[in-house]
């Protein structure tokens, strides 16, 4: 009888009791939610919960105000199993010995904006020399900001950089405590309220000035529960498909608005960009090249102490299986290293 019980337990050891997904964003609303990516759609629509419900597996979404860096700390302490995180913080984690695999892309080709107080005389990046600038250190915003500065012949040393998280940056900008901030779509609301002026958008400078994010899993969890990983990936790919369908555009922005960023801001963020462009989960040559570039830039900027290679970091088998099962072959175009769509 004991043997039977042991076998029974072994059969069910494949499923964990709870799946903890860390999100490198502050969750807002009640219950907390977020927006801006297929992972956000999956969370709002409870797709992961539904996929894991038959096995009685609970899903916990844990939000981190400290964004990517805070998620790294949670990963190091094994307090989360999956994470939705940006390119730079994950590279920092990998450089410091975190053992993870990247499963799929979630929010790619996003830009960074430079905003200043409305009456400021800063017109572009070159005017930032010697000014107090807020940058959220360690997030994927930082590297784009550093590359933008480099393209304009500046480095962080030419500015007085202050580390400010999303909320603090908006407050500092509104109260004119800083001369400029590099931030994301949350600036649109501030601009509409007349508290800030966006003077630069990095996407205008090309795809090498964009940031990417992804869903990753801790190696230990993946080894122990590959089936669960597959179910999670499949549900997020479903969410990615829903988020890429132009017919869902306004519904998508309304859904993401529950996370505190208004629908109008999402419209501004996605203006002139097809949803498929941003919400593609594919691990294609573009993504791999971008992540290696982030790793190389991080080394060049002394953000990491030894080089990081992306070889073996991406694990596309779950994504490929999900695409096969959901019959989404060719739905999203694959892109080459420079970002051009492969036919």
């Amino acid at each position, binding site marked *: 009888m004991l043997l039977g019980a042991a076998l029974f337990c072994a059969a069910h050891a494949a499923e964990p009791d709870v799946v903890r997904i860390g999100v490198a964003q502050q969750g807002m609303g009640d219950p907390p939610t977020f927006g801006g990516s297929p992972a956000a759609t999956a969370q709002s629509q409870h797709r992961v919960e539904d996929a894991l419900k038959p096995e009685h597996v609970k899903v916990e979404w844990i939000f981190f105000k400290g964004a990517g860096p805070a998620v790294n700390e949670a990963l190091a302490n*094994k307090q989360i199993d999956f994470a939705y995180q940006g390119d730079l913080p994950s590279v920092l984690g990998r450089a410091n010995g975190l053992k993870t695999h990247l499963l799929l892309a979630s929010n790619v080709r996003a830009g960074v904006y430079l905003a200043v107080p409305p009456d400021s005389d800063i017109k572009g990046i070159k005017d930032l020399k010697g000014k107090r600038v807020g940058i959220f250190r360690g997030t994927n915003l930082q590297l784009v900001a550093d590359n933008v500065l480099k393209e304009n012949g500046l480095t962080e040393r030419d500015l007085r950089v202050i580390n400010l998280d999303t909320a603090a940056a908006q407050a500092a900008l509104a109260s004119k405590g800083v001369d400029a901030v590099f931030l994301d779509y949350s600036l649109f609301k501030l601009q509409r309220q007349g508290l800030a002026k966006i003077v630069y958008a990095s996407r205008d400078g090309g795809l090498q000035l964009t940031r990417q994010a992804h869903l990753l899993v801790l190696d230990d969890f993946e080894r122990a529960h590959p089936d669960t990983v597959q179910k999670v990936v499949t549900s997020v790919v479903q969410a990615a498909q829903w988020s890429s369908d132009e017919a869902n555009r306004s519904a998508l922005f309304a859904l993401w608005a529950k996370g505190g960023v208004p629908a109008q801001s999402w419209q501004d963020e996605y203006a002139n960009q097809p949803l498929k462009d941003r919400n593609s989960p594919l691990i294609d040559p573009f993504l791999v090249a971008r992540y290696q570039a982030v790793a190389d830039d991080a080394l060049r900027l002394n953000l990491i102490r030894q080089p990081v290679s992306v070889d073996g970091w991406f694990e596309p088998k779950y994504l490929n299986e999900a695409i096969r099962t959901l019959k989404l072959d060719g739905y999203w175009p694959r892109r080459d290293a420079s970002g051009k769509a492969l036919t």
Partner: protein
Amino acid sequence: MANALSRVLPSAGRARPRHTGINTLHAFGWTALPWLVPVVCALLWVFGSRYGWISAQVLPPPALVFDTLGALVRSGEIWTHLAASLSRAAVGFCGGVALGVVLGALLGLSPSLEAYVLPSFNAIVQVPVLGWLPFLMIVVGIGEPLKYLLIGHAALVPVTLSTLQGFRSTPPALREVASVYRYSRWQSIVHVTLPAAIPMIGTGVRLAFTKAWLTLVVVELVASSEGLGYLIVYGRQLFQLDLVLAAVLIVGAIGYVADRSLNALERKLDRTGAR
């Protein structure tokens, strides 16, 4: 203790060497006791990182932390940050102490002023210094004035209260002597009250430095572009916990050295005051 015993028990002469041995052990034990906790912590750190009791990303091995410390010194970076932190601390601390002595003296000398001001003062100081941070950030921005104000506030409170105490606790005998000599009010303040209050003011200044130093680091964590607190944040955001610990070690070392120096100064003042 050995002598006393041998007086009571003359036959304890044979036992004397043993008592001396135990005495030496006792003495050694008392001097070694303060080192017990730091050594145990250091050993826990060394073994914890070697055997992976806690993940290396969260608690880096001591060797890496000292390496980083060395790199900071070699690259010269540390001096910029140290200079920034120390200068902020100096300005805020001196301002807070000066204001605190004046305020405490005024409150100590005038019972009616104390009755008006002290209750409000006590109420305001209940708010922790960092509770004022968000409000002050909006009022004065996130530049140097914010740091000076908060550090000054942290230093002001203990100095005011201890100065007040000091001015209150002039020994009555000295006051009687002053009235026998028919000192004017000003003379008795300068020649009697103030010297008698100096030891207490010294204690207040020492406490004020500890608070000011701690406040400095925390304010730098939130809003600065150089300094030791800034190094801590930078290390944390870039997931370089060894940098964080290196900066923490420097902060602790400076705080400890300053505290010990002020302690020695205070004891010297005590001795000259007590006569």
